[in-house]
């Protein structure tokens, strides 16, 4: 078993707000992230897949194909978008780093051939990242 990690980047806007809470509670919990005009980040994602090395190609997965899947399923949807307003999964979930990792897992799981999705890591910035290993239960 080999683990292969591919990075990709996107830049997006977001804000943190829960409509079931009062404005005061939103401000208290989310601080400056609750500014409804939004703010943005350069996100880096690292997608790790696990699989066996194909004896003919020497690959776990074809990196060109993995890059194209990340581009199609994630980057083309998230890049230079406002996550709350333009990405459907964040109409109902706050686009925290944790929830972005879960959302990317859902977008990729089952779509990468010859391997199993192992981890989605999302960096909001160099000093903050979230990991999701598909632990839904």
């Amino acid at each position, binding site marked *: 078993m080999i683990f292969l990690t591919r990075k990709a980047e996107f830049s997006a806007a977001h804000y943190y707000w829960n409509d079931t809470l009062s404005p005061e509670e939103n401000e208290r919990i989310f601080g400056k992230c609750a500014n409804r005009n939004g703010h943005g980040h350069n996100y880096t994602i690292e997608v790790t897949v696990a699989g066996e090395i194909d004896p003919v190609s020497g690959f776990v997965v074809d990196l060109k194909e993995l890059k194209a899947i990340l581009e199609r399923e994630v980057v083309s949807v998230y890049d230079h978008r406002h996550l709350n307003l333009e990405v459907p999964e964040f109409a109902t979930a706050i686009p925290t780093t*944790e929830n972005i990792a879960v959302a990317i897992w859902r977008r990729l799981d089952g779509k990468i051939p010859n391997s199993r999705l192992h981890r989605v890591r999302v960096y909001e910035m160099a000093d903050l990242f979230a990991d999701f290993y598909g632990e839904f239960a």
Partner: protein
Amino acid sequence: MKAHLTRRYHFSASHRLHSDAYTAEENQAVFGKCNNPHGHGHNYVVAVTLAGEIDPATGMVCNLGDLDAFAREHLLARFDHMNLNTLEPFLTLVPTTENLTIEVNRIFQDFPFARLERVVVEETGNNSFVFGG
């Protein structure tokens, strides 16, 4: 849904590796230039990983404001721009990065809002230590 959140903190501190159990020659042999008498310093990077269920109301494993405030009070205020040898527990324990990692782990185990999973301390970009899973 369980996620793992990692936050990195930076502080700068001096230290000297020296054990009273060794002779001067033994200290020099074991610790080399790290035993030089007046100490030296590093820009340390601490990465703490917390694990837990994502709160459906906030989308968070824990509130980053709470974590940053805890780190400022219990890690950075204590160690940043300080000489580690002058502080507990390094009055009696060599302030290697191994021992520092264990102390940072002990500190963040008291963070009340999420379970500490792992601590990594980088002494330099080429040199890091991990405690936990």
